């Protein structure tokens, strides 16, 4: 009998109500007896709700029928009925889980009054009811129950601020619900039933002004409950002031219920889909803009929450419009779960950390677990892989693309970018090691709910990945490796380094083994090269928490990028690479601020690529990279993708993130960034060029523009490098310039152009790797980055000097080393193409490059050595080892370029017919010829002969090796190395001549952009003046506006 009751009632969805009400009665009783047991009952009943929802959902997923509960045993419409279908089940389960975890977090403050426990239960039950009920009036009742419970919970607080916010909330929602009631009754008046299904089936009966008013009242009050801009100040105030537990439940639970109600009633709203979309889209975008100005943690979360609800509504409506009902589960469901868990988790985190101003969040800088949770939640919110939001956004954008809704795509991506801006700014604040801030203390168990939420997010994201067509093991390998290494992050550095190298080697090999063609070439460059450079990381043996796992993630995601066969896989790995490199930059002490810029620009580039892929999908309907070539509008797709890749490579105008990021990152990681990571952009560029660029119908224009961008990047990169004092910034700018040549080479869309581009790519990898590793050694020894504070180091670090010199000759393009080949081929290709102006600029920029190259050698290695540097030792051997390998490669390629050129041209031949003509050792082009081995021999000869002569002559002389101050100093003697070493502002005269070209205009522009957006934000939030009546007025005006907008007067 009991068992029967158990199975028939308790395990049914109805059991949720039974549990809630039953526990509601029991809690006060137990509370009288014993507080602990009351809490036990409370948690038990919540857990029970979760269990019931889970069991029934499981049953339904396994094909059980949708459960219809008819109260009082009478069929609808004569009695209220509830429904527990797939969607209801999912939402209910999610909400209950959030409620359970929220209760865990909220318990400390809940348990002060037993009634609070009761109210919490009622609140949860109300949400469940909103989701399940199929009766319009019943929906109203559940809304009110939820609201009352919420009011009461807020009212529990004693502080005036919270109460005031609560009162505004009450006023606002009660006005809204009053209208809901009116709408309901008018609908009943016309349809004669309250059962939602019947109403929908007799939707035709809703007609005339009354019908319009009725539906609009219902719709608008639901929208109001979802807090649309600008009628949402009341919600923000509650988010800001209320306890994090209640705020989280309002943000995810109540909104979820209302949102689902909207979803249920949507069939009635067909006429108003557009206005809903506009409202939702505006809310998403504008609340994210306003978020930029916000520094109050919980209010910021409120803005983000409102924005996310807007995005959800927008997605729902757009899918409805494109009648892509099939994807609702994936897109809306994904976004919903993402928002639910991440936002709830963030509210709880805010409760735990309990710092109002996000600038004070540095207090958790030394709490890695809190930081990781924060980062995970943020990543999930802006839809980075592997979280559900990523897949949902991907699907959404693809759908929008295929419907040519580019405006909406722009809005979604822009909003996400803004959200990323303020969320990760917050993360940067939290990362700052600010010592005077008191460190945050919290018990070990306090973050547990957040952790569980994060785990659920990852798990769901992983699950969703299974439903996409995606090579899951390959794509998740980086994360897996990173996780594994993170587990052993406590071990000594040497062990971690070894494990990292092994993991990358094995994983990289497995990922890239069966690649061919260009991908294979890049796999040597990115994976093998990355491995080579990461050997250098051994030169440090401090702890470096998180460095090695992230490095593994980075390198393996690069490998996965090469392996990607679909745009989805490509984008997935791309985002993974962006995220991991961002975090790696933040690991450096001063790297946090530049890292933010790096991340934002990288996300910008990623979104360009995203849009490009969407456009491609729109025209081909396939996400295979191989099908990119068949798009009907190659110009658009090419431009979008190229823009993305150029941003990632620090193209002219969007380069401002590059120098700071390169300069402030860890020294060995800078080498990785410049030599390896930057190649990802080149890879993408080459791929799309191969797929789209050589299409005849694309027209030369995008490629020509790309060529100009490339050469301008090269020129200005070189010019700006000339005026740097910081050695790393100098080489960073030079990196930018060199990449510019490569962009131009790719843009040439000719065989020779591509060969030169790839050749330059390999060359750039070699010499930039050497340069940055030598710099790492120098900085390690001198603890300086300003070049004028060094000097004369050739005496202490001869090996480093020689390596640097070779690298610089290889970069400068002076024969006989590799650089010349690249320049020669590029020049020939440019002439063949007839791009004479670009050729001239290329010539000029490579001449300018000499200035900074010489400055680097002169001011660091030559000139006067400082007294304190007299005892410096040579750079550590482990830093030199990779350099030796790269020097060897440079020498080999210089002496015998065929070694490199044959595979390069073989990789290109599938796309463009080979044009390399070999005459013996000499490479022939239409214009000229280049016989590298002979050049090498001649240069060797003409260098050896005078050397021998000089040695012979030296035999007849007494040559005295002298010290640094034995110089002709106008019949005086030098006094301090500092004032004898000509290094600071080395090219002052050059600055006087053409310095006006390199005043930081791009920086000024981007700063202005930041300024504008913040100003816009502050002017958009004037509505939130904190006055409850103003808020109520806005709500009223919202109703009026909706009615007018939807032709209320017309009909």
């Amino acid at each position, binding site marked *: 009998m009991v068992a029967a009751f158990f199975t028939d009632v308790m395990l049914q969805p109805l059991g949720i109500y039974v549990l809630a009400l039953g526990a509601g009665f029991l809690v006060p009783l137990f509370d009288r007896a014993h507080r602990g047991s009351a809490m036990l009952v409370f948690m038990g009943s919540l857990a029970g709700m979760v269990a019931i929802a889970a069991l029934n959902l499981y049953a339904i997923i396994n094909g059980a029928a949708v459960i219809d509960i008819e109260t009082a045993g009478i069929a609808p419409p004569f009695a209220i009925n509830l429904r527990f279908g797939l969607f209801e089940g999912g939402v209910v389960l999610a909400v209950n889980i959030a409620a359970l975890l929220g209760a865990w977090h909220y318990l400390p403050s809940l348990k002060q009054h037993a009634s609070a426990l009761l109210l919490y239960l009622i609140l949860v039950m109300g949400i469940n009811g909103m989701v399940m009920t199929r009766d319009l009036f019943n929906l109203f009742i559940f809304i009110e129950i939820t609201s009352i419970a919420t009011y009461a919970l807020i009212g529990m607080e004693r502080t005036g601020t919270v109460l005031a916010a609560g009162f505004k909330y009450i006023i606002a929602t009660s006005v809204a619900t009053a209208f809901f009631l009116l709408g309901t009754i008018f609908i009943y008046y016309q349809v004669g039933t309250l059962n939602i299904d019947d109403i929908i089936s007799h939707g035709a009966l809703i007609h005339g002004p009354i019908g319009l008013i009725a539906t609009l009242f219902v719709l608008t009050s639901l929208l109001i409950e979802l807090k649309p801009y600008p009628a949402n100040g009341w919600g923000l105030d509650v988010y800001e002031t209320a306890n994090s537990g209640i705020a989280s439940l309002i943000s995810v639970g109540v909104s979820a219920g209302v949102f689902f109600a909207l979803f249920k009633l949507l069939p009635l709203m067909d006429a108003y889909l557009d206005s809903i979309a506009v409202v939702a889209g505006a809310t998403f975008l504008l609340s994210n803009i306003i978020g930029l100005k916000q520094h109050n943690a919980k209010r910021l979360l409120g803005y983000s929450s409102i924005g996310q609800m807007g995005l959800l509504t927008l997605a729902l409506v757009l899918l409805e419009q494109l009648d892509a009902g099939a994807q609702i589960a994936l897109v809306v469901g994904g976004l919903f779960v993402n928002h639910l868990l991440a936002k709830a988790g963030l509210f709880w985190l805010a409760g735990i950390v309990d710092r109002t101003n996000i600038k004070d969040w540095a207090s958790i800088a030394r709490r890695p677990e809190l930081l990781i949770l924060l980062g995970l939640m943020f990543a999930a919110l802006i839809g980075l892989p592997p979280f559900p939001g990523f897949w949902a956004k991907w699907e959404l954008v693809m759908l929008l693309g295929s419907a040519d809704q580019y405006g909406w795509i722009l809005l979604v991506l822009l909003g996400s970018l803004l959200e990323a801006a303020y969320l990760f700014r917050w993360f940067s604040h939290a990362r700052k090691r600010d010592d005077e801030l008191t460190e945050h203390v919290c018990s070990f168990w306090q973050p547990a709910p957040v952790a569980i939420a994060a785990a659920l997010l990852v798990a769901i994201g992983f699950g969703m990945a299974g439903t996409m067509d995606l090579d899951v093991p390959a794509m998740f390998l980086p994360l897996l490796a990173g996780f594994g290494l993170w587990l052993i992050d406590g071990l000594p550095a040497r062990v971690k380094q070894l494990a990292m190298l092994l993991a990358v080697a094995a994983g990289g090999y497995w990922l890239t083994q069966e690649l061919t063609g260009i991908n294979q070439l890049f796999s040597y460059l990115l994976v093998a090269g990355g491995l080579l450079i990461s050997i250098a990381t051994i030169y440090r043996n401090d702890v470096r928490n998180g460095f090695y796992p992230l490095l593994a993630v980075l390198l393996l995601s690069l490998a996965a990028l090469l392996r990607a066969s679909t745009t989805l896989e490509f984008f997935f790995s791309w985002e993974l690479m962006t995220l991991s490199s961002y975090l790696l930059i933040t690991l450096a002490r001063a790297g946090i601020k530049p890292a933010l810029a790096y991340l934002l620009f990288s996300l910008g580039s990623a979104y360009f690529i995203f849009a490009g892929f969407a456009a491609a999908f729109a025209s081909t309907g396939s996400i295979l990279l191989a099908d990119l070539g068949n798009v009907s509008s190659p110009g658009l797709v090419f431009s979008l993708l190229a823009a993305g890749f150029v941003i990632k490579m620090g193209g002219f105008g969007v380069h401002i993130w590059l120098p700071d990021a390169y300069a402030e990152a860890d020294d060995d990681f800078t080498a990785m960034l410049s030599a390896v990571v930057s190649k990802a952009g080149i890879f993408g560029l080459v791929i799309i060029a191969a797929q789209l660029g050589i299409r005849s119908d694309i027209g030369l224009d995008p490629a020509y523009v790309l060529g100009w961008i490339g050469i301008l990047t090269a020129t200005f990169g070189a010019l700006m490098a000339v005026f740097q004092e910081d050695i790393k910034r100098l080489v960073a700018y030079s990196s930018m310039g060199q990449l510019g040549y490569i962009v131009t080479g790719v843009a040439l869309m000719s065989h020779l152009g591509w060969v030169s581009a790839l050749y330059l790519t390999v060359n750039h990898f070699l010499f930039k790797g050497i340069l940055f590793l030598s710099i790492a050694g120098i900085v390690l020894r001198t603890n300086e980055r300003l070049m004028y504070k060094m000097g004369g180091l050739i005496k202490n670090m001869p090996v480093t000097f020689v390596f640097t010199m070779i690298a610089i000759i290889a970069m400068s393009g002076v*024969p006989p080393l590799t650089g010349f080949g690249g320049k020669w081929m590029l020049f020939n290709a440019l002439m063949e193409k007839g791009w004479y102006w670009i050729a*001239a600029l290329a010539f000029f920029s490579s*001449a300018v490059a000499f200035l900074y190259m010489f400055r680097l050698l*002169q001011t660091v290695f*030559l000139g006067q050595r400082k007294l304190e540097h007299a005892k410096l030792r040579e750079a550590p051997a482990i830093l030199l080892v990779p350099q030796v390998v790269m020097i060897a490669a440079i020498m080999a390629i210089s002496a015998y370029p065929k070694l490199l050129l044959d595979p390069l041209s073989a990789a290109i031949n599938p796309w463009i017919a080979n044009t390399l003509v070999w005459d013996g050792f000499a490479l022939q082009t239409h*214009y*000229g010829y280049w016989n590298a081995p002979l050049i090498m021999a001649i240069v060797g000869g003409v260098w050896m002969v005078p050397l021998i002569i000089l040695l012979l002559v030296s035999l007849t002389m007494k040559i005295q090796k002298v010290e640094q101050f034995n110089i002709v100093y106008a019949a005086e003697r030098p006094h301090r190395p500092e004032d004898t070493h000509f290094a600071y502002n080395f090219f002052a005269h050059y600055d006087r001549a053409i310095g006006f070209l390199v005043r930081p205009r791009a920086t000024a522009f981007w700063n202005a952009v930041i300024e504008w957006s913040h100003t816009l934000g502050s002017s958009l939030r004037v509505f939130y003046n904190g006055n409850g009546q103003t808020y109520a007025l806005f709500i009223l005006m919202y109703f009026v506006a909706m009615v007018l907008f939807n032709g209320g007067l017309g009909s």
Partner: protein
Amino acid sequence: MIAEWTGKIANFALTLLIVTAYGLFMTAFIERIIAKVQGRIGIPYWQPVINILKNFFKRTAVSHGYMFYLGPVFRIAGGIGTLAFIPVIYGSETFSNFSMAGDLFLVIYFMFFGQLGMALGAGESGHPYSAIGIARGLSQMTAYEVPFALAVISIVIQYDTLSITEIVAAQQGGWQNWTVFTNWVATLAAMLAFLGMTGYSPFDIFLAPQEIPIGPPTEFHSAYLSFMSLNRALFGATKLVLFMNLFFGGATGLIELMIKTWLIYMVAIVVGVAFPRFRVDQAIRFFFKIPTLIGIMSIVYAQMMLTS
């Protein structure tokens, strides 16, 4: 094979000898002309040789380090190499050198080889004046490279080749085929750049014998110095040969070579004797204005030639 290459090397050695001797002679000759302008007699013709020998016969020297020691070697290697890649006399196997190794682009880039090595050597001397001189010289170089590059591009468009031999071949058959007449715009730009290249006044600030005693070579002396003065003669002559090949129809014999190069050199000398010195930033701005403009025009001109 071996014989062939030894032959080539022997030929090149001969060319090297002749060009160097000619360069030294030219230096003295120009000195004497300047002297005449100033109403003096001037140095004997063999003076440059004596100076070089004198420096070789120095018995003491100092060294600031291995890069300082190698600087002059790099310098003269740059000179010799540049010559090695240029065919000196058209149609003569003996004087074609190793021009089969690379084209005009190689020559232009190899010119930097010596300058870079020299700069490093001077840098290690630790003398501030060296660094200043090099900083000025390099900046000026980037400036005059612009009109020069434009002119080169223009004639590459015109002759549709980068091979110096072919460029010369295209100018054979009468003075009217010389670039200076067929593409005078490019020649004008290039000759303006040439003023900067030779490093005579008004573009000799980076040597500035008074303010920064003779700039980069301040610390060099003895054998180092003689290497460098040898190179100065050789490199100067090489540049003349290059300009003659590119713009003045090359030479079919030694006499023609000498007359033409002498005339080309005279341009720089006349300007140098007539004009005072530019400050380096003035020099840079100068090259970025009129000469660059002319260079741009020269490319347009060449394209018009192609179309018509």
